[in-house]
């Protein structure tokens, strides 16, 4: 409202403030967690929260920003999880130390993301020809097929790759609080930067009105596949972290319900709001844990909350609001200046 030139903070200063705050958050909280500030159980919950944040924020690209409704996000997560799991087992990451360990972890994360992104392109090109609900259904179909293939591929081809229904076991546990947090920060950063760029504006234009965007020269198919692939990439990274967190994988984990779970986080937080996705991923992961004392009732309470939020706040908790540190600081700066003027 009151964004006059004197009240805006220059860009380099903004970047500086944000970098300082984020590194404080990452290193401070890692030191706190590793120093025994919280129990092992809480650390585990924090890691799951981090993985869910990546999943929700990445789905938000396709749902909130692009305005499509993919129901197969768990499929991409599965591709990433199995790629990461098989890679980590193959290179025996648990026996490596130092730099080679770090390289293996980074390679596993990138490889999972890339393979999931390849699947994103393969599925995206045919799926994005369709619109609205049909897109939802076809991605649902692809997600289920990925699950069925993961279950049965070993039997058919005679590989020892996914170990079918009995599950991939003894994956090196590479996931720590620190690397989950770094991945969360990088995911949010990359997606934020893409969305603020020319490509991001093209994606938003497609959401607002596809035909209008097309007639203004936006290459709709290209940008749709791009957003879809971006979303798949980070789902794959989250899958790899999940594999390294759990140490064993089963195809049934990545069913239709997992996709729905992620979608619920996005919609509940508010579609198109990264802050909302983060917030609801935290809430929806922490809430069932906090309600563990009421084991029997927690899923009922969870679904009731979902229905009630949708009835009373259909745009999600945050709507399209997004958190911005600089905006808050600018308000603060503007406020003190005005206050100073009145005094003087």
């Amino acid at each position: 409202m009151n964004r006059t030139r004197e009240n805006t903070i220059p860009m380099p200063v903004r970047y500086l403030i944000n970098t300082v705050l984020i590194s404080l958050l990452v290193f401070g909280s890692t030191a706190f967690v590793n120093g025994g500030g919280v129990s092992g159980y809480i650390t585990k919950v924090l890691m799951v929260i981090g993985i869910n944040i990546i999943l929700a924020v990445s789905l938000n690209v396709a749902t909130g920003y692009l305005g499509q409704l993919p129901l197969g996000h768990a499929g991409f997560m599965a591709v990433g999880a199995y790629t990461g799991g098989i890679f980590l087992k193959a290179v025996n990451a648990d026996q490596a130390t130092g730099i080679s360990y770090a390289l293996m972890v980074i390679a596993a994360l990138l490889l999972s993301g890339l393979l999931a992104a390849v699947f994103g392109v393969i599925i995206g090109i045919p799926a994005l020809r369709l619109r609205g609900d049909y897109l939802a259904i076809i991605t649902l179909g692809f997600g289920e097929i990925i699950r069925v293939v993961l279950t049965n591929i070993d039997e058919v081809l005679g590989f020892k790759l996914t170990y079918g229904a009995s599950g991939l076991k003894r994956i090196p546990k590479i996931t720590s609080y620190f690397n989950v947090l770094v991945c969360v920060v990088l995911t949010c950063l990359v997606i934020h930067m893409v969305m603020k760029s020319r490509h991001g504006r093209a994606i938003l234009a497609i959401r607002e009105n596809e035909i209008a965007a097309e007639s203004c020269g936006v290459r709709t198919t290209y940008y749709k596949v791009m957003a879809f692939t971006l979303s798949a990439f980070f789902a794959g990274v989250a899958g790899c972290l999940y594999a390294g967190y759990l140490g064993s994988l089963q195809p049934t984990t990545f069913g239709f319900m997992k996709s729905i779970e992620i979608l619920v986080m996005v919609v509940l937080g508010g579609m198109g709001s990264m802050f909302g996705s983060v917030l609801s991923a935290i809430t929806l992961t922490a809430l069932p844990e906090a309600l563990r004392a009421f084991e029997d009732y927690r899923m009922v309470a969870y679904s009731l909350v979902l229905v009630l939020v949708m009835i009373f706040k259909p745009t999600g908790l945050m709507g399209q609001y997004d958190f911005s540190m600089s905006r808050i600081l600018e308000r603060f700066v503007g406020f003190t200046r005005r206050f100073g003027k009145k005094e003087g």
Partner: protein
Amino acid sequence: MAFLSTLFSQIINGLQSGSIYALVALGYSMVYGIIMLLNFAHGDIIMVGAYVVWLSMTSFGLHPLFSILLAVAVSTLLGVVIEKVAYAPLRSSPRLSLLITAIGISFLLENGFQLIFGAGAKVVPTLISGPTFQIGGASISTPALVTLGVTVVIMIGLTLLVQKTRLGRAMRAVSEDMGAAQLMGVNINTTISFTFALGSALAAVASALYLSSYAQASPTMGSMLGLKAFVAAVLGGIGSLPGAMLGGLVIGLAEALVSAAGLSVWKDGVVFAILIVVLLVRPSGLLGKPMKEKV
């Protein structure tokens, strides 16, 4: 000859499960046609119906026929109540919110029933008993015959209802253009409620037919059944009644033939692969009307 009789038995099995899918698919299709909602809670109505049958037969000792009628009544009521409580307030909000509400209701029913009755499967007493007929080496059980017969009768009845009655005309009008239908004096709320009631009643019938050959009720039985039926509805062309029937039969037959070929673990994969191929070649489904996009 042995191969032919196996094939014939599998085709009968496929037709039987296909008719059940078709009945459930009709509910999805009608609701989608009228308010453009993928009603994820529809599969769980089947589950509720199955529990009503189980409870009324084991605890109250009702005759199978009465317990099925009771299940139909309860499901119909439930469908209408869900529409009034959860979907009606959201009629003017974004469609995704409506979808999430439907998912929420589905979770609520599944978890609620799990809380009340426990997660284990309940064995339902025999609903339909009768001899197994032998035709040239292939056997057809009475439940299979009853399923096919009931489905055919319901399909004919439903077609007459939609094509010939005043309410059916209202349904078609609302699904064509809700605003215009309202201006012509069609009561939107009654029509939507009626559609939900009809869909839920069909789901309860499907539930009884399902129980007659599988005899088990569990809180999550509706989710996969519902998903397959939903695929059937899309395959046939969502919003089209003959399409839902055709889609159901295609899915049922495809599953049976894949099982007959000894590949039953790939059953789900094949169903979704058929769906993808059909959607890519004919995005509006086998019998659906192609949608035109206007600026």
